[in-house]
C-alpha cells in the first residue's frame, strides 16, 4: 500500500509546515516502515508525543500522558527487532487507551474526580494484550465521567474539543480517544461502547470506531458502566488499522465470564476482501426507522451517497423495518442506569479513591460520593436506584428487558432480509460545546441510532462518509452485523472506505483543518 517515494514527498511537504509526517501515518504504514527499517518505534512514539505536546493543550484528548513508559516500550521493541526477534503485527505502533481501562501503576480515573490519584494495582486483560502486542501506551484519554455522556462535557477534568472545530464536541463518552486519533496524536486508540461511545465520537470526528460483538473483547479491567451493554473496541483512521487492533485485543478471556469462547474474527482479511473484491452478493438493509425525520439534511445526503457507493460495489440494497426501536432509548436508559447504580456503589471511600472524612462511615460514604461524582453520574444513579426499587422493578427494569427482547427480535427479522444493516451513526453533525449540557434528553437523543445495537449485543462500526454540506463537519456511516459476524462489518467498511477514498482522492481525515500549535 505504501509507496515510499510518495511517502517521502508527503513527509517533506509536511515537514515544511513543521509537522512530523510520522504522526500522520497509519498503523499499517508504521508497522511496515518499522519492518523495512526506515523508522524506529522510538521515532514514531516521539512523533506522537510531539504532536500531543503541540496540540493537546487545546484538544485535551489526554488525561494522562506517559511519555517515559511509551518510549521505554518503544526502545524495547526496537532492540528486539534489531535482535531479529519475531514480533506481533502492531509491535512498536503507539496507542492511546480510554481512561476507564485499568493500567497497572498508571492513573486510571474513568473521567471521575472520585478516582483522582488512584494507581491501579493490576492490568485489565485489554491492557495486558496491548502490552503483549508490544504497543507503546501513550497515555489515557479523556471521557465523560464513567462513560456517561455524548460530548465529554461530563468529564470531571474538563471537556475534549473536536479537532475539526474546536468549539464543537468530539462526541462521547469516548471523545478523548476519537479526538486523539483525529488530532494525529495517536494512530490507534481504545474506546468503550455502551450506547455508542465508540461510534458516535468516531462519527463526529471523521474517524473509525468499532463496537465488537458483546463478549468479543474482554471487559475484565474495564471500569463498568452497564455490564450487559459495555464493550471495548478499536478507534482508528483506516479500516485496516481498526481491523489489526481488533484482532490484537479480541479473544476469549477466562477472567470475563461473558467473554465469547470462539476464535477472533478475521477482520484484516475481511477489509482486504471488501476493498479488492467489492460487495457482490452482499445484501445491505437500510433501517427505515433510522433515516428521514429527525436527521440533519447533510447527514441524510451523505448517507444516501454512501449507500449508492455500496450499490456500485455490487451490494443489493433493501429496506428493513425495526418498529420496536422507538422504545429502545427509554429501555436503554432504564437498563443502563439500573446497572450503573449498582456498578458505581463500590466507590464508597473505603478501599480506594477519594475519601471525604466524616464522623461515621455512612456520612463519609455519602460525603465522598457527593463530592466525587458529577451531576450526570448522580442523575443516573438516582434514576437507576429508583428503577430497581421494590414495587417498581417490574414496571421499569422488567419492562425494559422485554423491550430488549423485542429489539433483538427486530434485528433477527432484519438480518433474515439483509447481511448487514446501515444507518447514519448520529442524527446530526457535532453540536457546540455547552449547547446541550443542561438538556440531558437532547443529549441522550444523539445516541438514537447507536443504542439498539448495544441492547442486542451485536457488532457495529462507524466510518466517515464525508462532511455535511451545511456545516462542513464529518458525518458517520453506521454498519451493523449479526452477533459473531464482526468480519462482515470490516468487509463492507473496507469496500466503502475504498470507494470514498477514490472519490475524495485520499482519506477524509486529510481534509481536516490543521490545528494550531499551542505548546
Amino acid at each position: 500500500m505504501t509507496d515510499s517515494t510518495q511517502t517521502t514527498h508527503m513527509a517533506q511537504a509536511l515537514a515544511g509546515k513543521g509537522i512530523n509526517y510520522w504522526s500522520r501515518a497509519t498503523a499499517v504504514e508504521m508497522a511496515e516502515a518499522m519492518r523495512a527499517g526506515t523508522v524506529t518505534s522510538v521515532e514514531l512514539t516521539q512523533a506522537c508525543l510531539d504532536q500531543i505536546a503541540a496540540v493537546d493543550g487545546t484538544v485535551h484528548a489526554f488525561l494522562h500522558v506517559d511519555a517515559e513508559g511509551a518510549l521505554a516500550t518503544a526502545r524495547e521493541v526496537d532492540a528486539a527487532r534489531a535482535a531479529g526477534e519475531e514480533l506481533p503485527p502492531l509491535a512498536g505502533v503507539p496507542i492511546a487507551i480510554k481512561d476507564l481501562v485499568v493500567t497497572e501503576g498508571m492513573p486510571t480515573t474513568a473521567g471521575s474526580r472520585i478516582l483522582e490519584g488512584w494507581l491501579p494495582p493490576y492490568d485489565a486483560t485489554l491492557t495486558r494484550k496491548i502490552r503483549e502486542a508490544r504497543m507503546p501506551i501513550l497515555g489515557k484519554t479523556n471521557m465523560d465521567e464513567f462513560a456517561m455522556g455524548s460530548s465529554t462535557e461530563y468529564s470531571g477534568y474538563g471537556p475534549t474539543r473536536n479537532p475539526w472545530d474546536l468549539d464543537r464536541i468530539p462526541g462521547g463518552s469516548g471523545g478523548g480517544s476519537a479526538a486523539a486519533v483525529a488530532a494525529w496524536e495517536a494512530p490507534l486508540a481504545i474506546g468503550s461502547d455502551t450506547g455508542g461511545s465508540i461510534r458516535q465520537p468516531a462519527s463526529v470526528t471523521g474517524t473509525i470506531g468499532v463496537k465488537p460483538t458483546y463478549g468479543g473483547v474482554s471487559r475484565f479491567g474495564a471500569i463498568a458502566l452497564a455490564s450487559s451493554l459495555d464493550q471495548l473496541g478499536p478507534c482508528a483512521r483506516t479500516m485496516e488499522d481498526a481491523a489489526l487492533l481488533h484482532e490484537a485485543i479480541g479473544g476469549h478471556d477466562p477472567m470475563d465470564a461473558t467473554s465469547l469462547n470462539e476464535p477472533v474474527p478475521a477482520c484484516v482479511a475481511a477489509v482486504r476482501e471488501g476493498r479488492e473484491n467489492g460487495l457482490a452478493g452482499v445484501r445491505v438493509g437500510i433501517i427505515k426507522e433510522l433515516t428521514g425525520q429527525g436527521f440533519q439534511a447533510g447527514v441524510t445526503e451523505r448517507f444516501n451517497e454512501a449507500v449508492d457507493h455500496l450499490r456500485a460495489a455490487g451490494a443489493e440494497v433493501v429496506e428493513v423495518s425495526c418498529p420496536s426501536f422507538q422504545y429502545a432509548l427509554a429501555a436503554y436508559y432504564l437498563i443502563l442506569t439500573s446497572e450503573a447504580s449498582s456498578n458505581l456503589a463500590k466507590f464508597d471511600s473505603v478501599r480506594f479513591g477519594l475519601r471525604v472524612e466524616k464522623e461515621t462511615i455512612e456520612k463519609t460514604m455519602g460525603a465522598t460520593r457527593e463530592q466525587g461524582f458529577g451531576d450526570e453520574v448522580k442523575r443516573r444513579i438516582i434514576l437507576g436506584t429508583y428503577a430497581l426499587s421494590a414495587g417498581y422493578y417490574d414496571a421499569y427494569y422488567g419492562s425494559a428487558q422485554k423491550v430488549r427482547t423485542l429489539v433483538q427480535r427486530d434485528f433477527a427479522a432484519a438480518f433474515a432480509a439483509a447481511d448487514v444493516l446501515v444507518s447514519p451513526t448520529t442524527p446530526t453533525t457535532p453540536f457546540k460545546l455547552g449547547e446541550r449540557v443542561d438538556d440531558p434528553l437532547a443529549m441522550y437523543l444523539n445516541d438514537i441510532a447507536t443504542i439498539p445495537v448495544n441492547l442486542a449485543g451485536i457488532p457495529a462500526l462507524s466510518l466517515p462518509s464525508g462532511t455535511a454540506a451545511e456545516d462542513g463537519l464529518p458525518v458517520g456511516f453506521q454498519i451493523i452485523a449479526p452477533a459473531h459476524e464482526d468480519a462482515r462489518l470490516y468487509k463492507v467498511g473496507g469496500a466503502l472506505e475504498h470507494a470514498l477514498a477514490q472519490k475524495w482522492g485520499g482519506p477524509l481525515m486529510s481534509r481536516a483543518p490543521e490545528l494550531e500549535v499551542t505548546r
Partner: protein
Amino acid sequence: MSLTYDNVVERYDPVFGIEVHVELNTKTKMFCGCANEFGAEPNTQVCPVCLGLPGSMPVTNEKAVESAIRLGLALGCSIRDSSRFARKNYFYPDLSKDYQISQYDEPTCYEGELDVVLDDGTVVKIGIERAHMEEDAGKNTHVGGTGGIQGADYSLVDYNRGGVPLVEIVTKPIEGMGARTAEVARAYVATIRDIVRALGISDGRMEQGRLRADVNLSLRPKAAPGEDQSAVPFGKRSETKNVNSLRAIERAIHFEVVRQAQLLDAGEAVTQETRHWHEDTGSTTPGRSKEQAEDYRYFPEPDLLPVEPSREWVEELRGTIPEHPAKMRARLRDEWGFSELEMRDAVAADALTLIADTVAAGVTPQAARKWWMGELARIANERDEDLASLAVTPAAISELQGLIDSGRINDKIARQVLAGVLDGEGTPTQIVESRGLEVVSDDSALEAAVDEALAAQPDVLEKIREGKVQAAGAIVGAVMKATKGQADAGRVREIILARAGVEG
C-alpha cells in the same frame, strides 16, 4: 409471675424457620482464585476481584456449584435447569463491591424435604424452601470507644473472608412442634451439619462460623379444641442472627418464645425485627428494625452467565450423595451391635466413618471401635487433633489387628507399633520387623526367662502350690520386663504353672 417455656408452649404455637449459612470448603473463593482458608493474616487472601476494585469481574467457581447442587440433592431439593445470580445491593464497609452476589428469584436448589431424627427416634419432616449460592462478606473489627460500629474510634476491615462461597439453606415455616420446638430446631441444624460433613463440602464447625444459623420465630395463639390451627394467622416474627452452636439454638428459641409471650400476654405487639444473640447472657437484643428494612434492589447479575447444570451431571452428582446421617447411624448400630452409648460416643468423636472403613478393612466392629475410641482417641486428645487427621489409616489399623490376632504381637507391643505408624516409620509389619518387636514364643527362651525370674522370687512357686495362682502374675511381669514386653504372656503363665506342677 415469670413465664416459662413449658408454660408458653401450652398456650401458643411457636412457628419458626431457620436460615443456615454453610461455608463451603472449596480450595478457592466463589468468584476468584484466592485461597479459601481460615485464619490467615488479614487481607492476605485478596485480589482485585474480591476487593471489588474498579474493573474487576467475577467468575463462578464450578466446584462451589457442584457442592451446592450436591447439598441441594441431599436435602431432597429440585435442581433448576437454569438459575441466575443476582446482586443484593446495600452499602456496608465489609462488602467490597457494596453489593453481594447471591441468588434471588432463581435459586439453584428449591423445594426440598429433610427427615430430622430426634433423640427418641421420632422423625420430623422439615420443608426446605431453597438452598442458594452466595458470597460471604469480609469482617469488620471496631476498635476503641464502645467497640460497636457506631461508637468505635475506628474500624478495620479484613477481606479474607470476602468472597468465600456460601450456601444458604432456608426452611419453610415449621409449626405444630409445641414443646419440642427447640429440640426440633437443634436437631435440624445438627442434621444439616452432619450432612455437609458427610458430603465433604464443609467441616460444618459452628464455633468457627463455618456453619451459621439465623432463627426466625413467631407465636400464635393455640387454636381452641376443635378449631383448625392452620386457620390462626401467624404472628409477627423476630429474626435472631448468628446463633452459632447447637445449644445456643435451643437457648435462643427458649428465650424468644418467653420474650414474645410476655409481650403478647401484656397485650403488646411483637416488633418484626432482627435481633442479636448474646451467648453470655442467653438473651437477644434488637438489631435494626425490619420496618426500616433496606430495599436490596435485587436484579440479575449481568457479569455472570446463568448456572445451567446438565441433567446428566446432576444425576451423576446424585450418585455421590451419602446416606442420610441419622439413618446411617441407625443402620450401623444394628449392623455393629453397638450400645446406644457406644454409638453416641463414636458420633461425638466423629469416628463413624473411620470405624466403618476399619470394619470394611476386615476388623470386627468392637475391635475397630476400641482402636478409634480408645488408644487413638487418647492420642488425638493429647495432641489436640482430630481423629481423622492422625497419620494412620483404617488399613493400617486392620493390619495391626491382624498381627495381634495371629499372635505375632500382643496388645502392648501393638501400641508401640502404632506409635511407630503415627511417626511415619512405615506399615505395622515393617515396624515390627525393623524394631524387632515380635512376640517371643520360643519355649526355650521363655523357659529360661521364667527360671531366672523364679530364682529371684523363690517363694512364688510355693504360693501357687498353696492355691494362690494369682501370685504367678509377679513372675509374668518380671518376664515381660526382661523381654521388653515381647513375650507371649499366656505362654509364660503356662510355663510358670507347669513349674509349680499345677494345671493351668
